[in-house]
């Protein structure tokens, strides 16, 4: 089963979202939808403006996955982060020495990392790292 790779139109279209975290904010209900689109995910309004997700936040929830998909070395720690200023993002933690370092409320920042590879090309995206001050 072949699927779109990094050189595909799908990946190319998503460059601004993946590399610059561009989404939209609804001027009617305030919801932040990501990736970009014409319509607010929450209320259906088209009264929207571009919004760049902030790169710092606190962990809202997390888990520690010891049975990830085959291309990942276990454990991986996916987190959902409340971003400073609005919005949320889902990503993996990086540089955690032990899974116990990660807690609800931990302060994190986004860093660019290689997520995986496909057919010789690297796929980059943001992961979260605990900030030095907690």
């Amino acid at each position, binding site marked *: *089963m072949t699927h779109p790779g990094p050189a595909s139109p*799908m990946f190319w279209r998503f460059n601004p979202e993946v590399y610059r975290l561009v989404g939209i904010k609804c001027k009617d209900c305030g919801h932040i939808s990501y990736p970009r689109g014409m319509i607010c995910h*929450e209320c259906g309004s088209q009264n929207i403006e571009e919004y760049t997700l902030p790169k710092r936040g606190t962990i809202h929830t997390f888990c520690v996955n010891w*049975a990830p998909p085959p291309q990942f070395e276990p454990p991986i720690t996916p987190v959902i982060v409340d971003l400073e200023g609005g919005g*949320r993002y*889902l990503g993996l933690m990086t540089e955690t020495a032990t899974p116990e370092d990660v807690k*609800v409320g931990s302060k994190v920042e986004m860093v660019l990392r290689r997520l995986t590879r496909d057919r010789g090309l690297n796929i980059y*995206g943001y992961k979260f790292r605990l900030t030095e001050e907690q």
Partner: protein
Amino acid sequence: MRGKVAVIGVGMIKYGELFDKSLEDMVQEAYSNCLKDVRKGIDPKEIKAAWFGQWSGGFIGQGLQSGNSLASLIGNLDIPVTRLENACATGGDTFRHACLGVASGAYDVALALGAEKMRDKPSAESLGGAGGGGGAEVGIHPAWAIGQGGPAIQAFHATRQMYELGYTMEDYARVAVKNHHNGTLCPYAHYQFEVTVERVLGSYIVCWPLHLLDCCPQTDGAAAAIVCRADLAKRYTDKPVYVLGSNTGIDHCQLWDRKSFVEQQSTIRAARGAFEMAGIKPADVDFAELHDCFTNTELLNIEDVGFCGKGKAAKMLQDGEFDMHSRLPINPSGGLKAHGHPIAATGLGQIFELVMQLREEAEKRQVKLKNGIGLQHNVGGPAFGVSAVNILSRSM
């Protein structure tokens, strides 16, 4: 919907790791059992439309696509058949479509069948394929696909339930204890062994805070139901079971759009709509089959469907209020945890259980009926944003 549709036959096969049965074998067996269950007999040609629930054909490459794959297997090519997929709610939603077909007046008799073959691949591959894979295979950029697999999404909830509601891993383990016990009394269940809290917490951690025994198994199975116009039901059986409400509820498909991780809006919406259709309240329900794909999910479901307030389910479980012979038995069949979760079949297997219970034919696991009303629930999909709820009753 209320007053228009009745279930006149249900059929299923024993769930398990059925290495010697193909998907086609399971479909035919469940269908055949379903026909036999129509007590006064039915000519298969009386079925005028069919809906075929099948999940993995699109996702993990071991299933069937398109409606005519069912039509061939049941040897009925004269009717419209649609293949339906709505994540873990496929079974309940397939049933809903058959009911809609009848309630609309278009068909007098319709078939809903769901089947899933998960174990032609190693469990880890099927589990990984159940969302949480690389991402690009389903049109999602890998940057946003990681951590969207079933165990990870429910683990996000389990972490938050612990943080916000004070739930513990022991609370989750107690769901497994109850459901495994119920499973030992159900001849169709995948697992038929008891567990203790210690055994659950001692099993290896799949996705913290969930252990291996907090997770439902990878199961092969199939189940079916035949529905007809309520006013024609007695022609086919003396014990018809009536559909009071049937609804599908939706929430966002991306985790970061969701507001809360201690409730699932998809379930809340599905249940609210189903209760409205049925004209009843949660307290009127005698028992329920809820989608406990993971132990903590059962607690979410009990609260989201409306059986108790948020944060109350764990204590009530501990006090035995959801046991087999309590006022509100939850998952008398053993739930997904012990009975199994062949994804597209699950909802229909729960319908099977509801019908057996409402006919008082559930043998060792028969629950006490007061109002004669049972509720079936599924939830799943991307960000667990799809839910199905069906409410059945032994009286119109």
